[in-house]
């Protein structure tokens, strides 16, 4: 085993600076796309994806005929989205923009913020600015859905500072293992998690051939706090569920899925 040292230095890069590697790890994750697709079909109106990244969700939905556009803060991720769209023969509308301050030319029936992207807002002011921009861009009666990681007590009391193997999958070209290690330090008072991420590409002998290091800082959100944020941002009503099947949010939930509606 070659777990990275928790205090490995030299990880100033964000994982979003390496979009190919990101896709290598996450392109296969489809569970959320199915749900967001269903919601988009039920709503009917145009859809905006905030933090669309390389288009895993957005292009998946566009392929199914959804009228969708996206924004993302990372030029590298958006560039890859456009390259992928071109390969797929799709005309993608995706722009580099900040979720706290974006403006679009139209409003939407549905805005989605999938896959833990909202936790990149690190302060209440940032959280509220982002939610207010989204509220502003919803049609009357329009719906916002965001999914973030659930800060369960067992997660909060996980051992900090020890590398955890988050993901292992075969490299699509070589079949050799690719491993994602995450070493987390959590501050429960400020609700901030600092992560050192190491992505290891193994060779045929099982030795680490290439290692990529990144760091992230995210802020998790508790359920009552999420409801207060939605209320402060002007949403008329909301519901919080613990999975994509509308299951209740409880102590065992792994995800916190917030659905909020703009007043009609």
């Amino acid at each position, binding site marked *: 085993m070659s777990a990275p040292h928790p205090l490995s230095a030299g990880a100033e890069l964000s994982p979003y600076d390496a979009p190919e590697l990101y896709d290598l790890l996450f392109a296969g994750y489809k569970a959320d796309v199915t749900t967001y697709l269903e919601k988009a079909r039920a709503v009917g109106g145009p859809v905006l994806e905030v933090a669309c990244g390389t288009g895993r969700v957005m292009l998946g939905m566009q392929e199914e005929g959804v009228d969708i556009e996206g924004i993302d803060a990372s030029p590298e991720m958006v560039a890859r989205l456009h390259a992928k769209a071109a390969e797929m023969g799709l005309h993608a509308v995706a722009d580099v923009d900040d979720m706290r301050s974006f403006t679009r030319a139209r409003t939407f029936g549905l805005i989605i913020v999938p896959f833990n992207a909202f936790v990149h807002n690190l302060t*209440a002011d940032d959280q509220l600015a982002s939610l207010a921009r989204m509220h502003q861009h919803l049609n009357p009666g329009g719906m916002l859905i965001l999914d973030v990681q*659930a800060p*369960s*007590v*067992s997660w*909060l*009391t996980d051992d900090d500072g020890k590398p955890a193997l988050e993901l292992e999958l075969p490299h699509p070209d070589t079949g050799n293992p690719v491993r994602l290690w995450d070493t987390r330090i959590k501050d*429960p*008072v*400020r*609700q901030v998690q600092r992560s050192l991420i190491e992505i290891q590409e193994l060779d045929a002998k099982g030795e680490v051939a290439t290692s990529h290091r990144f760091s992230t800082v995210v802020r998790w959100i*508790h*359920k*009552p*706090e999420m*409801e*207060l*944020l939605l*209320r*402060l941002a002007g949403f008329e009503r909301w519901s919080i569920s*613990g999975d994509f099947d509308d299951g209740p*949010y*409880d*102590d065992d*939930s792994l995800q916190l899925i917030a659905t909020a509606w703009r007043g009609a």
Partner: protein
Amino acid sequence: MPTTSRAYFASPALYDLLYGHFSADVPFWLARARTANGPTLELACGNGRVLVPLRAAGVDIDGLDLDAALLDDARRKLAANKLVATLVQGDMREFRMSRHYGLIYIAFNSFQHNLTSEDQIATLARCREHLLPGGTLLVNVFSPDPAKLAQHNGEPRLQIEKELPGGASLQCYDAIDSEAADQIMHVSRRVEVRNAKGAVTERHAMAWDMRWIWPNEMALLFRLAGFPRAEVEGRAGSLKGDFSRQAELKAGDAAVWTAWRDA
């Protein structure tokens, strides 16, 4: 309807037995009351653990509490010291006093009897209504500690142990279950008093619910209640007689919030 837990301390004598010795926070409230621009109001004043010494020190202070028996006991303590104060029975979510205050404070986690955001905001908004322009609201809640939350498994744990006069002793066990997603803890408490020979001479049982509040959430509650500014400081959160200010707020500390009504 009423979501504030009521069955907290039916007996003033039992409250004093458990907490009467805890006075580490009193100098802090006294110092704040002395620098306040106007009279002081204590919400959830109970039987006067804080209010009576502040009144004795000359603070112009009123008190509010939900529990008539606790208030009667506070009045008795005031009278025994030849003191008077206006004590009103009422609910912190909807109280109405006949004057406005330079300082309102809620000590020792009493704010956490509010079990919903609606109740929390209603309480803070009532406080704001009762503050003079520029007045100050102080709220002491505990800063949640995930390690302690992880122990909420319904098993009784020794919470308070005290030596009593004449060789007697007191043990207080809390069994806590929680609904962590909604930040609600159900506390079942068992108190036993033993004589010098170790025989149990008194047994008490009580139960109540409390809600913990994360610091970021508390800041949002102040915003929603109309306070433009709120700050938090960490103080030693033990019952062992220390309420000293900490360099920064940590899990498990007493979180003391200060919010200002705009002038």
